[in-house]
């Protein structure tokens, strides 16, 4: 039994891709309904319960029967197994709720990867059908609307003409030492931009420096998730209805290849339909593509909007690397003093290896070094110590080691965000056997790294370690933690955009080539992952697309 509701616009997903559209169009006068599969938390509900939030199923479902698994097969495996990898936070605000909020803009080499490299053997590269100048004003708009803090004019590689809307957060005093080390090796460190308020902004208070940003919701509202910033503003227009617990299961179209609405499952498990003139999918690159595959019809037997055959293809993640330097707190305090030694943020990044002109490597595109302090999670840190010893550290020795870590050591680390080349071996489709609790085929991820992405990543981890080793006073130990691995919640590419319908799923305004008034505004549109986390770019692009849709409404083209 279905009942019919109507809206001007239905948005599927309320995170980085969905919220800017919902806000812009409801401000412009449209009646907007947002379907969000997950629950709607109030920021004040968020806690620092490490087990409950990070080590169970708070943000991401368990992969078992009766839950919502994905399946994954890696690096040439034939069978896919159940996983919770590939999920981004399932709640109003999506991944922006649990992100750390490292907010860098894309650069020319992210938009022109194909032409600047001349192509890379085995990779399916494509330039953006946009120029950076088209996107820049929307980066500025996005930063102002959600609240991004940073310091312009220091990073020689930054893509901006205007200052940040908020000054940078306070850095741990060891940031000076990192700067000196970087400079001594010819690198240019700069303060890391964050989607975190350094001052009061609107009715939101500033950061309280608790340090529980990444993997947690911010109970303060100071982390600029869409939950804290754009969603309340959209609601305030009186024209935007957020519907949590509503899982879209099918996009509806008519015989003229025009979108007509969305079919979804409500919190009581009933199937409902909502009619709309415009539908915007923003459920994450994996889930939006899955929804389109599930929406196949007689005219689209391989999935809606898939005449190009590229739906689900060119899936990219981010190539990850990390290394750790162990410092003695006492030595650092002797040099820096005690003030600020408990501040949680280091906030230093390096982008000298974003584009490596003279490299002998196949891919001259590296990415970003993000220097930070080890995450404050105590259980995770303790398990890491046991793991580092290959589990041979236990008993009183483990207790002593824990005590030493928490009382005497400071760990400075870096994470590498590197380009993840798109290619035929990495894609998304529907699992032929496994179904979720709604009895729908789940997303199956086939993950394979292009070797050139991994080679660059390994090089970057070594170079990042050089910087750590150059810090004075010297670290006790510098060890690599991981290299050439996958950051799954940074996901893109499954509906890449472009001008040619044979080579793309979406047009340059992120409208589906094949279906009128159907847009996709999450990371699906990105032809490549970029050398930074794409979240700010997804937000900016979403504002851009929303602006375009708003003009189409005004011109009565819809």
């Amino acid at each position, binding site marked *: 039994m279905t009942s019919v509701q109507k809206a001007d616009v239905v948005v599927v997903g309320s995170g980085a891709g969905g919220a800017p559209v919902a806000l812009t169009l409801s401000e412009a006068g449209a009646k907007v309904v947002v379907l969000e599969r997950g629950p709607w938390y109030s920021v004040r509900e968020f*806690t*620092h*319960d*490490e*087990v*409950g939030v990070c*080590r*169970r*199923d708070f943000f991401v479902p*368990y992969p*078992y029967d*009766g839950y919502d698994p994905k399946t994954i097969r890696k690096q040439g495996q034939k069978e896919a197994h159940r996983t919770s990898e590939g999920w981004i936070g399932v709640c109003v605000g999506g991944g922006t709720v649990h992100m750390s909020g490292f907010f860098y803009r894309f650069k020319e080499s992210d938009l022109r990867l194909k032409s600047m490299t001349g192509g890379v053997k085995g990779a399916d590269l494509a330039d953006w059908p946009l120029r950076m100048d088209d996107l820049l004003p929307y980066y500025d708009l996005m930063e102002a609307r959600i609240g991004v803090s940073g310091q312009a004019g220091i990073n020689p590689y930054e893509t901006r003409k205007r200052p940040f809307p908020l000054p940078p957060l*306070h850095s741990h*005093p060891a940031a000076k030492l990192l700067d000196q080390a970087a400079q001594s090796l010819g690198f240019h460190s700069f303060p890391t931009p964050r989607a975190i308020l350094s001052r009061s902004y609107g009715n939101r208070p500033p950061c*309280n*420096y*608790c340090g*529980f940003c990444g993997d947690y919701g911010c*109970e303060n509202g100071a982390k600029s998730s869409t939950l804290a910033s754009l969603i309340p503003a959209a609601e305030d227009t009186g024209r935007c209805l957020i519907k949590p617990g509503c899982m879209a299961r099918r996009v509806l179209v008519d015989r003229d290849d025009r979108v007509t609405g969305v079919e979804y499952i409500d919190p009581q498990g009933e199937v409902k339909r909502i009619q709309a003139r415009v539908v915007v999918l923003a459920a994450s690159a994996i889930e939006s593509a899955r929804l389109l595959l599930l929406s196949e019809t007689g005219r689209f037997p391989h999935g809606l909007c898939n005449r190009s055959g590229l739906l689900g293809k060119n899936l990219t993640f981010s190539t990850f690397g990390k290394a750790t330097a162990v410092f003695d707190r006492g030595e650092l305090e002797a040099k820096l003093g005690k*003030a*600020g030694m*408990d*501040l949680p943020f280091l906030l230093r990044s390096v982008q000298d290896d974003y584009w490596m002109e003279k490299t002998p490597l196949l891919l001259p595109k590296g990415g970003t070094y993000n220097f930070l302090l080890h995450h*404050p*999670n*105590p*259980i995770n840190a*303790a*398990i890491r110590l*046991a793991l580092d010893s290959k*589990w*041979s550290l*236990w*008993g*009183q020795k*483990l*207790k002593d080691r*824990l*005590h030493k870590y*928490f*009382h005497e050591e400071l760990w400075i680390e870096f994470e590498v965000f590197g380009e993840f080349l798109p290619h035929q071996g990495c894609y998304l489709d529907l699992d032929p056997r496994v179904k979720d609790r709604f009895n729908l085929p789940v997303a199956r991820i086939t993950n394979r790294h292009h070797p050139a992405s991994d080679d660059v990543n390994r090089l970057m981890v070594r170079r990042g370690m050089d910087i750590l080793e150059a810090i004075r006073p010297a670290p006790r130990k510098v060890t690599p933690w991981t290299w050439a691995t996958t950051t799954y919640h940074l996901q893109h590419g499954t509906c890449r955009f472009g001008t040619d319908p044979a080579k793309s799923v979406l047009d340059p305004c992120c409208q589906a080539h094949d279906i009128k008034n159907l847009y996709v505004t999450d990371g699906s549109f990105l032809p490549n992952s970029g050398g930074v986390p794409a979240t700010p770019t997804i937000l900016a692009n979403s504002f851009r697309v929303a602006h375009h849709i708003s003009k189409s409404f005004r011109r009565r083209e819809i």
Partner: protein
Amino acid sequence: MRLNRRQMILSLLSISAGRLLPGCGSGPAKNREGASLLVFEPDRRRALCSAAERILPGAVEAGVPEYMDYWISRQPFSIVSDWKPILKVGAVHLDRIARAEYRRAFADCKPDEQDAVLTRFQKGEVRAKRFNSSAFFQRLVTLTLEGFLSDPKYGGNRDGVGWRFIGRTPCWWAPKRLP
């Protein structure tokens, strides 16, 4: 007595409220008659508690056994419930090896004897059908550390002893001196 004292300490510590969980902070889960629902049979539980105590001295006092009970018995299903079979089998093997070497149950062995037995598990040297002894050991270490440092509402980190040991608490607001 212990229940009242824990509730009082919890309110004094002003730990983040979180969600109200039934039966939390009162030791092992209870059935409708109020009888204790031990997740493991007494012998298995003794073996696991003794192992946890060797892995992290002070674990039992800190409530690690109650923490384990909580997550293994929790409905709906938690990822740790999945570990119940391997923990149960592991406990059986702990006693089997202890009896073979020292003619006593694991819990009745001397500390250095228990350490010798545990070392064999940690190194994956205990061979048995459908049992991975190093995986068992790693899960036990993981649960012990979780039990020591988690929010006391789950039954472990009794009175915040784990957080006091490491010198920090993940309270929702911690004043810092800003430069």
